[in-house]
């Protein structure tokens, strides 16, 4: 039987988790050449919602934790084809066919490349679910000098701590929703960029080039290989090409397992602080054999008084 036992109900555990959850906001950026097009990204996320279930097998189950991507900015680099005219038959012979053909002359002298900026912050969400064990860890503050006593460390705000982390057993991440707005933003971006590209031309030339290119939105969508399902394309781009979901899962796992403890307390633990008219030093007791176990009602932290 341990000297001390402290229990936190599932409701309290939810509060503890919410504090950790709301502290998480990592970000990343990168770029990648994907052949027909390139992509640059700046991404970050925060976590919202989620339900907690304490399990009888000493684990914690977190379900439907929303990953809100903010910021999520993509810049797609797309080559649009040369715009050339000519190539018609000037002179044909019966039974032989065309013997003299006009050369193709390009109005654009090189493949123009366009950049499509897509700010889809807050428009894409994922869900994370996972099972975790409580991992107990002893933390020695790096700011604590070797010459400091426990009291000095306490006064300097760098005491040693016992910390309790959520160590993932497994994590699932699902892209659950891309708003229709993403499609509209993509289409508007294509129109704006092409108008900008051709903006210096007289109206008739702009109309002619756009007419030759055909519906530019369809053309760029084809280059991007968006067939019908924008959700699937975006999921593939974010998940496979950029590796965003892996990054999110890794970040969540690393942060919960080692960076933000769900609960912590000082060692030695203060049982009586500075109080009364006579300034006495606080009473603190060192704790050893600290452990946390979970059953389906509560999390219990146990400890013995150490030397």
């Amino acid at each position, binding site marked *: 039987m341990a000297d001390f036992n402290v229990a936190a109900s599932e409701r309290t555990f939810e509060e503890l988790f919410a504090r950790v959850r709301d502290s998480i906001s990592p970000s990343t950026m990168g770029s990648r050449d994907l052949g027909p097009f390139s992509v640059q990204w700046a991404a970050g996320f925060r976590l919202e919602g989620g339900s907690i279930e304490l399990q009888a097998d000493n684990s914690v189950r977190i379900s439907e934790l929303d990953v809100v991507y903010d910021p999520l900015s993509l810049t797609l680099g797309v080559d649009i084809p040369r715009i050339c005219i000519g190539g018609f*038959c000037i002179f044909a012979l019966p039974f032989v066919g065309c013997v003299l053909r006009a050369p193709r002359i390009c109005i654009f002298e*090189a493949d123009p490349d366009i950049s499509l900026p897509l700010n889809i912050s807050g428009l894409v969400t994922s869900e994370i679910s996972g099972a975790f064990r409580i991992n107990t860890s002893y933390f020695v503050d790096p700011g604590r000098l070797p010459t400091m006593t426990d009291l000095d460390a306490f006064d300097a705000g760098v005491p040693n701590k016992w910390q309790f982390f959520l160590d993932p057993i497994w994590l699932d991440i699902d892209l659950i929703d891309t708003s229709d707005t993403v499609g509209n933003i993509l289409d508007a971006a294509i129109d704006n960029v092409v108008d900008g590209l051709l903006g210096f031309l007289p109206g008739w030339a702009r109309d002619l080039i756009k007419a030759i290119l055909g519906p530019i939105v369809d053309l760029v969508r084809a280059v991007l290989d968006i067939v019908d399902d924008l959700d699937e394309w975006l999921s593939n781009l974010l998940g496979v090409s950029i590796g965003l979901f892996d990054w999110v899962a890794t970040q969540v796992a690393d942060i919960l397992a080692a960076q933000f403890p769900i609960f912590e307390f000082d060692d030695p633990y203060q049982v009586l602080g500075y109080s009364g008219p006579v300034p006495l030093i606080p009473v603190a007791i060192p704790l050893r054999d600290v452990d946390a176990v979970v059953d389906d009602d509560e999390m219990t932290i146990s400890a013995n008084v150490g030397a």
Partner: protein
Amino acid sequence: MTRLINTHALETRKIDSAALGHMAMIAHPMAEPGMYVGQVHKDRAVVAEFTLEVVTDEGATQADIDLGRVVGMPGAAKAPLRYRVSAGGYALFFVSQGPGGYRVVLSKRPERGEEDQLKPGFDSSALGKGDLFVLSLIRPGTWKLEERSTRAQATIAVSYILPGKEAYRPKEEATTLSLSDQGLSIEKLEIGPGEGVVIGVETSKAQFSVLLEDADDGPETRARQTSEPDDRTSRRVRWNNPRAGRP
């Protein structure tokens, strides 16, 4: 963002077969085998040369000679560009880059036993029988085609194309006309931008000019132009000099 655009092609409003530029081509049949020297003139000066070998064996039926490239090639004068075509094929002259305004003179290099002098042959400022003058107009509006020696005239209406659901593709077949002493076989034609017009020359010393007479700037501009006069209100105020009529 790459934005290399051929502005010369878009700004062309006047075409002259004697000063070849964008949107026009000249095809000359090369019947006789041999080595030809081509001189490219601009403003009465020779600005570049090229050679054209006409061979008897079957091969290319056309030699595409881009005068813009011939003139624009660094060191073109020292190492002229060489072209090759089969006898019976065509030398096709056009301009894809630069401002244009070129005249081409092709002369046959003398063979052994002949006088050591270039024999003047084709001159693009005076097209002869069998030559083809080819247009590929893109600027919407009404163009006036005129041949100077016969004073033959025709109008070419280039339609305005609005972007639509389907990509616009100019027709593969060119519209063919002929120029004889009686004039042009068609005097009025309508084409889409970038579609070909081929004029077969059946006379001698033909020289064509094509001028944009009435530019079509599209339905929006047309609507604005027709509505503007109706919106105006006459607000004429006459000022009378108070000293007028006084001594």
